[in-house]
């Protein structure tokens, strides 16, 4: 690019480089937008299909222009789907609260007033995430059957808590570690007890971290399918199970399926859009700020 520079007068060279830069910049921007649209397109297509009538949804060639209808959404919401939504809300909400209740103190004990062998404990937590779920599903199924808690939403609550707890411990710890030690010392010199320091100094400082942790737990629990498929039937089934049963029983109703899939994905999509920054940190278990 800059090979010709010494021959040409500097201002001309600068101008040419500037034009070059702008041109390649424009090209890169166009490329970026094309890729962004390409990646987003399947989601947009799902949303578009959800507003179609069934014959428009499964047409060849595809229907691009049509009068949007809310029929599919109505059908999804009327078909007894509220039971599934309720189960998903309980499984996601309660497990997230439990994760925070167990995980925040644990992260505290691994950072601010650390126990011995912190890295061993951290190693243990993360290693449970590497245990393939299929390796434990058989005994969990058998035990749940013997305890008569198959198809029981609280079974999912406990499993989702265990599933998210290691992530939460790692993530919360990364937030606790950022709290400067001087602040806590100052609080204790001022005579604040442990609980008081926790409540009025520490927790407000890590509140954004707690919110980010909760977001990640909500995403994973809301989308979880494997446990829900194998451990629930009619009483405790969650939203992903509803979509699958819609798919198998009414496979030809593409528009309705898209409406259900869109509604099911919407809470997490919106939460993720709003909390993009926290998303990175959560996905890397706190390793990346």
């Amino acid at each position: 690019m800059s090979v010709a520079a010494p021959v040409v007068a500097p201002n001309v060279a600068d101008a040419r480089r500037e034009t070059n830069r702008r041109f390649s910049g424009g090209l890169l921007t166009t490329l970026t937008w094309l890729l962004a649209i390409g990646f987003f397109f399947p989601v947009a297509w799902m949303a578009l299909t959800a507003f179609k009538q069934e014959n428009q949804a499964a047409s060849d060639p595809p229907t691009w222009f049509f009068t949007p209808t809310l029929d599919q959404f109505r059908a999804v919401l009327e078909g007894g789907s509220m039971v599934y939504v309720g189960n998903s809300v309980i499984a996601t909400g309660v497990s997230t609260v439990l994760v925070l209740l167990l995980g925040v103190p644990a992260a505290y004990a691994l950072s601010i007033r650390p126990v011995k062998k912190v890295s061993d404990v951290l190693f243990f937590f993360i290693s449970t995430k590497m245990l393939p779920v299929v390796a434990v599903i058989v005994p969990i199924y058998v035990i749940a059957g013997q305890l008569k808690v198959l198809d029981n939403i609280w079974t999912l609550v406990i499993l989702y808590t265990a599933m998210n707890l290691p992530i939460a411990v790692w993530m919360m710890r990364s937030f606790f570690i950022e709290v400067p030690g001087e602040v806590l010392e100052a609080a204790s010199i001022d005579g604040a007890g442990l609980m008081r320091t926790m409540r009025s100094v520490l927790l407000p400082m890590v509140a954004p971290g707690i919110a980010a942790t909760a977001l990640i737990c909500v995403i994973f629990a809301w989308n979880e399918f494997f446990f829900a498929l194998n451990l629930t039937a009619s009483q405790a089934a969650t939203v992903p199970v509803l979509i699958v049963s819609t798919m198998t029983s009414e496979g030809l109703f593409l528009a309705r399926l898209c409406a259900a899939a869109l509604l099911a994905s919407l809470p997490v999509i919106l939460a993720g859009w709003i909390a993009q920054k926290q998303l990175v940190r959560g996905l890397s278990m706190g390793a990346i700020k």
Partner: protein
Amino acid sequence: MSTSTVDRLEGKRRDARSEASARPISRAEGWRRRGPLLPALIFTVIVTQLPFLLTIWYSLHSRNLLRPESDLFVGLRNYLDIARDSTFRQTALNSVVITLGCVLVAMILGIVLALLLDRPFFGRSVARTMLITPFLVMPVATSVLWSIALLNPTYGLFNWVLGVFGLEAVDWTSTYPLIAILMALVWQWTPFMMLLVLAGLQAQPKDVLEAASVDGAGTWLTFRLITLPHLRRYIELGVLLGIIYVVNTFDQIYLMTAGGPGTASANLPFYIYQRAFLGFDIGQAAAMGVVVVIATIIVASAALRLIFRSFEVKE
């Protein structure tokens, strides 16, 4: 995280160590410190480790859920059966292909997208928001979307596009099941890699980049000599976390191909699921689970060393 932060953290770790050894913690203080940790630790041990011990126990038995009275101790016979099971070998290979294929392609695409997003242009945050969306869609919905709306042989959008270019329609999920699954998985995981790499790019120390440009280093040279080495930790972490998550892939396979045709696109999680919940063969399924865990431990211990080395396990 920039290198300087890492150095600082390591410094802090050293300080904490020497401090701890200088002032031994009293017994009561030790328990006060352990107190907040114990509920989470005990809960995790009970819910994740006890079932696994039972898995080992079951794997030594011949047990079928349909015939509860048939529980027999058979020693290592289940393991010998697995060693002879060609389907197990094939699904293990599929697991490797799916996991590595998805993680590598997604990482390359993720790096490209992150580099494109790391420059100022009009509407950048909108483009980024669009690009992360595939990761946020419920995996079950993703499977429905790909197998029916996009890849369906008669009204799927992909075949319509192929038709526009004069190509023949392809029944993706039965002709190229692994490729169909990989398409859906790569689409879902690319944003994840992109976000991690983008965070790495934005943590690059600006003064180093400026110095490089003052010294007359071109774009490519700067990228190869400064940016890429800086990104290494982030790429390693992305690949590692990607493997941990993708190796457990179940939803897409269950919904898009059901492991078929035959077992052409089944991975280990799906095969074990089939043996346990469709074949009700608890002993075999458990033994396969144990084998998977042993394989995972080998890969994971290398992986964990990597996490601990390159990222802040600060004490």
